[in-house]
């Protein structure tokens, strides 16, 4: 008994120490972001005579973050909306219908989870030019389509696994009542699998919001999202940790808030990818 108690103490000490180590990087960034640059030089955690200010955020926001953030929201919300709509429809077909080349199509969709995006990124640039998606706001359309194409595998896989969990008896009784495929999808599967769809939407939001490579390659300055702006701001040769840290905190805020408020759905989505896979 006594030994067990010491074991528990050791366990919590270990977990707490590890948690602190895990939180230090973000906490440091947050600390740097609320202090003037010249104070950081003596170490961000040296708090003697520290002044706290939101000035870094104001300047970062004015020097481009506002535009980048808007672009991020346009790209992310657009991609998530399109991926969820076309993905849910397709996932229903893959799980509950039968069609030609279904196996091949499913295989090709699953490859998106494995291959690097470098496999498609190089010809996409001339392809965008051909389709006229390479300038102005058309770039948003283009990048949304790329995210939808590359996210299609996850969409079908994840939403499909939630759709498959809808009890077959329910669908069967629907069919007996004369419901067509559309009615079954719309009135039976969608409402029952809604939590799963939300889980996927959150994960897709985090994924698209955090993308660097697609946006860096395909978009110009007027449509670039936060991650690209942040990557360009960060340079070993420039001392602007004040702006960079504030930008980083703002860039991580939307997904972290989403994660914090809808933790349940997020974990469920990851579980679905993990347990059954």
């Amino acid at each position, binding site marked *: 008994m006594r030994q067990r108690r010491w*074991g528990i103490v050791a*366990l*919590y000490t270990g*977990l707490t120490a590890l*948690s602190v180590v*895990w939180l*230090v*990087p973000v906490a*440091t960034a947050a600390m740097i972001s609320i202090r003037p640059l010249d104070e950081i030089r003596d*170490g*961000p*955690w040296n708090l003697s005579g520290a002044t706290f200010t939101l000035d870094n955020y104001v300047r970062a926001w004015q020097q481009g973050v506002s535009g980048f953030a808007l672009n991020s929201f346009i790209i992310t919300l657009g991609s998530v909306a399109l991926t969820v709509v076309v993905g849910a*429809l*397709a996932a229903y*077909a893959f799980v*509950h*219908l*039968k069609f030609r080349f*279904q*196996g091949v199509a499913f*295989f*090709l969709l699953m490859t998106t989870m494995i*291959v*690097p995006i*470098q*496999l498609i*990124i*190089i*010809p*996409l640039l001339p392809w965008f030019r051909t389709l006229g998606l390479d300038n102005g706001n058309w770039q948003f359309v283009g990048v949304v389509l790329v995210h*939808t*194409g*590359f996210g*299609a595998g996850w969409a*079908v*896989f994840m939403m*499909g696994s939630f759709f498959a969990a809808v009890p077959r008896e329910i669908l069967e009784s629907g069919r007996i009542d004369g419901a067509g*495929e559309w009615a079954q999808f719309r009135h039976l599967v969608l409402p029952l699998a809604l939590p799963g769809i939300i889980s996927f939407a959150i994960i897709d939001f*985090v994924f698209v*919001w955090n993308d*660097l*490579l697609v946006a860096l390659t395909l978009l110009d300055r007027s449509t670039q999202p936060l991650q690209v702006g*942040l*990557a360009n701001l960060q340079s*070993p040769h420039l001392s602007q*940790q004040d702006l960079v*840290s504030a*930008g*980083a905190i703002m*860039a*991580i805020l939307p*997904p*972290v808030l989403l*994660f914090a408020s809808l933790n349940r759905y997020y974990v469920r989505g*990851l*579980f679905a990818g*993990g*347990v*059954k*896979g």
Partner: protein
Amino acid sequence: MRTVNGRKWRRRPSSAAATLRPSRLLLPLAFVGPLLVVFGAFYLWPAVNTILGSFFRWGLLRPWSLFSPAEWDFVGISNYIDTLTSPRFWNSALNTAVWLVVFPLAVTVGALFIAVMIWQAPTGQRAFRTIFMLPMTISLVAAGVIWTFIYDPDFGVLSDLVRNLGIDFAIDWGPLEFKTAEWLSNPGTVDLGFAQIPLINISLIVAGFWAFTGFGVITLTAGLTAVPEELVDAARVDGARNSQVIRHVLVPALRRPLTIVATVSVIFALRTFDVVWVITQGGPVQDSEVLAVTVWKQAFVFLDSPQAGTATALAVIMSAALVVVAFPYLKGLLRREDA
């Protein structure tokens, strides 16, 4: 094709009812069509172009196109030969190999360690899990930026810690050279005889590890909740120590989630771009350049020279390697369709 779901319950209604529907062929198309159009135009088509284009010489100023054969400059497999014989490729391949060995190992072992600790905690499991999952939601760009604050030679937390605790040291043991400084320029090397591995790669892997281990923790936690408690209790009653319980009871029960974590971290390691790009851009010189960065630089940094062909060849090699390595995982994903 293989949807047991569909088959099972379609068999029951009479075949007459089935043939009565003329929409049988068009209907699935209406559901799956929109996705396949986008997927075809913005994934399959570019992928096909990459694969075909890798047999031609071209640059992005005059891109290769399937439909203008007059401008083709067919070079056979020489893009592949050029790639496989260039020192730059082997330098990046070595750095990628370091990622491939160290990263999945660190993530799998680290996540197992953390997940088991959390699982043993009587209370507060959710709070701890949330802390380790937090970095997963953070972009790798932001993670990279954040870790420069840790590694910075002047004010970085790690440098500060080393200095204040007086634990700065430098060692030179045979093949290993290491010093507790210059984390992002030159913290040392390991000499393998045939090649020198710059330890800066480890600095970057640590940042990736921090960002990604939460995935392992959550996946293994899902597996641990499925382990029957009686099994663990029985082992304890038989006098098994903690390490023995982990080794002989938990690890076998966790085989599936452990495989998933290992495979997904291998995929992550081979795809690595963001962290390296943001922290070092592959530098100093090419000490931390990985294959994903090389592809991108070859295709997009030197726009005037016709290097896109070699870049696509490298992209094809990377993708092929990933498909081979992740094939069991891919098969697992495909099996899911039947379940």
